[in-house]
């Protein structure tokens, strides 16, 4: 070991530059990959909505002056339901992949006190229209769907359907059905009884959520009153009928609500699949950017290590020749160069990890980022060590090929 460390300490510049590069690359790559993983969450998590191309959504419907009375909106939904080819239609206050109205907040498991930040979707016939997979319990009854809330409905007691992820988080014993969830942590917060559990349903507020809470969602039945931005979702029986239904849907919405719509803001009609694409496009772009950056960072580092090591090897050709003349095997020289690289890269990684963590702490302080999980560090370290070994392979082989006769040359 000593014969490897000593020359490193004598000729400090080269190993220092390599270690510095590794440290920087480590810090940048760890943070970039962490950001990337966060952007990836909404893309890879199932959103729970079945057959996205069979679901047409009308949104951005803005009333001039006062909101439409619930009766008018209900009437529109009823007419939508009557369109041939429509399997189910919903009138809702908020919708997956639609961020104009986000109902999110803290919910608390009554009795247990476990809290979660979750999103709420309020509307009628939501389970069927969204095509959710019911795992336990029941759908809302017709009577529950017919409720008209005074206001938003977040302050009203009643039933709720929640996602499996939320059920497991709030009720770890696996007995969510029939339990009560408080909407908010005030003493007079509404009490919602869990009547059903669905497999997945993505919340419409994502960004800094982790893999878990992107799936923390509740469904409430009924219709809010005085709600300025209603949303209609229509599920068609087959994709072939979508075009016809869309046309009829536009006609219905225009006839019922058109006269009182705000001038200059037109309703948007989109298939849920397209909405999803649009909402996730920004995350996808960020994923491409961050993966590109990480790749280039690692590439630049590998090239840098290669360049420096090959110079370092060339500089010591004579010493290597002498060692070969004194009986060192090719394998010894190879392993020595590799071990040396391992040491230098290792030192770089140590500093890099500290730097990565410091940068993450600073970013957390300034922006709403979450903490870099510890398990990133060993993975990052292993990756850097592997890359270092790959980068050093060619110079090391060249070093091993140095013939003993070099030792006798030009002394």
């Amino acid at each position, binding site marked *: 070991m000593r014969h490897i460390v000593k020359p490193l300490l004598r000729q400090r*510049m*080269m190993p220092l*530059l*390599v270690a*510095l*590069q590794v440290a*920087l*690359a480590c*810090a*940048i790559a760890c*943070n*970039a990959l962490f*950001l990337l993983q966060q952007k990836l969450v909404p893309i890879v998590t199932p959103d729970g909505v079945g057959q996205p191309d069979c679901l047409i959504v009308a949104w951005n419907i*803005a*009333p*001039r*002056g*006062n*909101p439409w009375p619930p009766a008018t909106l209900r009437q529109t939904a009823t007419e939508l339901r009557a369109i041939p080819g429509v399997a189910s239609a919903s009138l809702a206050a908020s919708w997956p992949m639609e*961020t104009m109205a986000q109902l999110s907040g803290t919910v608390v498991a009554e009795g247990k006190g476990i809290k979660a930040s979750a999103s709420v979707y309020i509307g009628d016939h939501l389970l069927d229209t969204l095509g959710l997979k019911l795992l336990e319990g029941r759908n809302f009854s017709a009577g529950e769907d017919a409720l008209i809330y005074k206001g938003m409905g977040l302050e009203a007691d009643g039933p709720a359907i929640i996602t499996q992820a939320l059920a497991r988080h709030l009720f770890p014993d696996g007995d969510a059905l029939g339990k009560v969830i408080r909407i908010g942590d*005030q003493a007079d917060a509404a009490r919602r009884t869990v009547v059903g559990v669905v497999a997945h349903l993505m919340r419409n507020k994502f960004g800094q959520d982790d893999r878990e809470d992107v799936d923390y969602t509740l469904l409430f039945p009924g219709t809010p009153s*005085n709600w*300025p*931005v209603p949303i209609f979702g229509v599920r068609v029986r087959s994709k072939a009928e979508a075009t016809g239904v869309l046309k009829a849907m536009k006609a219905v919405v225009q006839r019922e609500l058109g006269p009182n719509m*705000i*001038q*200059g*803001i037109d309703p948007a009609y989109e298939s849920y699949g397209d909405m999803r694409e*649009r909402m996730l*496009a*920004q995350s996808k*772009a*960020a994923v491409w*950017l*961050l993966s590109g*950056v990480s790749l*280039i*960072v690692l590439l*630049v*580092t590998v*090239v*840098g290590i290669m*360049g*420096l090591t*090959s*110079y*370092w090897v*060339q*500089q010591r050709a004579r010493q290597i020749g002498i060692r070969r003349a004194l009986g060192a095997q090719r394998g010894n020289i190879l392993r020595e160069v590799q071990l040396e690289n391992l040491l230098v890269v290792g030192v770089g990684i140590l500093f890099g990890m500290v730097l990565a963590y410091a940068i993450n702490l600073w*970013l957390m302080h*300034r*922006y*709403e980022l979450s903490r870099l999980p510890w398990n990133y560090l060993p993975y990052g370290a292993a990756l850097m060590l592997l890359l270092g070994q790959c980068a050093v392979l060619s110079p090391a082989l060249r070093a091993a090929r140095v013939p003993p006769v070099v030792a006798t040359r030009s002394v």
Partner: protein
Amino acid sequence: MMDYYLRLALSRCRQNVPMVLLLVLTMAIGIASTMTALTIFRALAGAPLPGVSPSLYVATMDARESVDKDNPDYKQPDSLLKFADAKALVDAHRAVQQVAVAQSLTQIGRPDGDQSAQAYGLMAYGPVLQAFGVPLRYGRPWTEAELASNAPVLVIDTHTAQKLFGTENAVGRSVTLGRRSFRVIGVSAPWKPRVQMFDVAQSRGNLMGQDENFFVPAEASLDAGVGPLIAGECGKDAPVASFQSTQVSQCRWLEAWVRLDTPAQVSAYGPFLAGYANAQHDAGRFVYPPQARLYSTQAWLALNHVVPDDVHLNLMLAGGFLLLCLVNVAGLLAARFLRRQGDVAIRRALGASKRDVFVQHLVETGLLGLLGGVLALPLTWLGLWIVRMQPVSYAEAARFSPGVFAILLALSVGVGLVVGILPAWRVCRQPPALQIKLA
């Protein structure tokens, strides 16, 4: 001497071309990524109204008149005011200039109904054009007397004038806004803040804003049946109003912006604002302690995260990447220079001083940096093009500008010199005798 160094550097660049390419390319990628991120950052993070907004401040206070269970502790400062409060602040004339504004969206038409245009604009109480520095092409802004008498006058922009009347100079013509006819007293040049600064809490997702096509006295506009685009925060017992409503008497829908040119004016305005708000609280109107505060435009935008965090993060990422590229190139350059120690030793032996050798190598790295900069130019352009293709709210800000070009050139030469210092110092440090022996 310089020209000899340059020729020397050029001839050396021709040796070991792959290595030179690698060095130049690494620098170019580092510079181009930083320039791309910097261009976007500069476009978004600068003053929304250059020359004007640095002395503009927005008044915030907790002006709620009923208990709000959802947000009892007023975590986020609120800039929306009722018309009465906004009017009181403007009428007090305690700042250099003051105006209350709200955004509106409506249809502006010719009285004969032949032409009409969809128009975004500002409903204002006070001298809006002067306060925000909106350039007037023709005509004049409204007077205090016109404001006080609710005169139906308005200012439209050249774009709307052209669309309605086929000419930019529409001063003196009449247009229909809502139910009433308004006289055009001025025509403004196309104008919008560089990033959205009005009602930022409710304008999320509309980062770049849109041209303000008209400016109209708020009360005259309400009289004509045209309200603000978003009714803002209405009291619990108020009829629920949403968009374009004129039933906003119980709503907080205007923002008060004041111009304060000197720190003394700013520190004098703060107590006045707090005094006004506290008086309302004491009179029982505001139910919560008002916590009135004045925010500079920049501070207000930062507080509301108007410029997405991604823009900052990308700039930091690009900066870190450039640093990595610098270390990388410095290492490769050191290896490249130290391989030539023999040449240096001969030059030193022939009488060149350490300084000569140092300068010679710096010239070489400066040249490499410049080459990197030249290569970074198309790469930056490509980077900006890629950003413009992305579905991000700031895509429009990714435009190449002459200022960017100047920064890029300076950056590339700077990068070349910085990466050269360590290797050049290293190569001139060794005593000539030892180097000749080594060679």
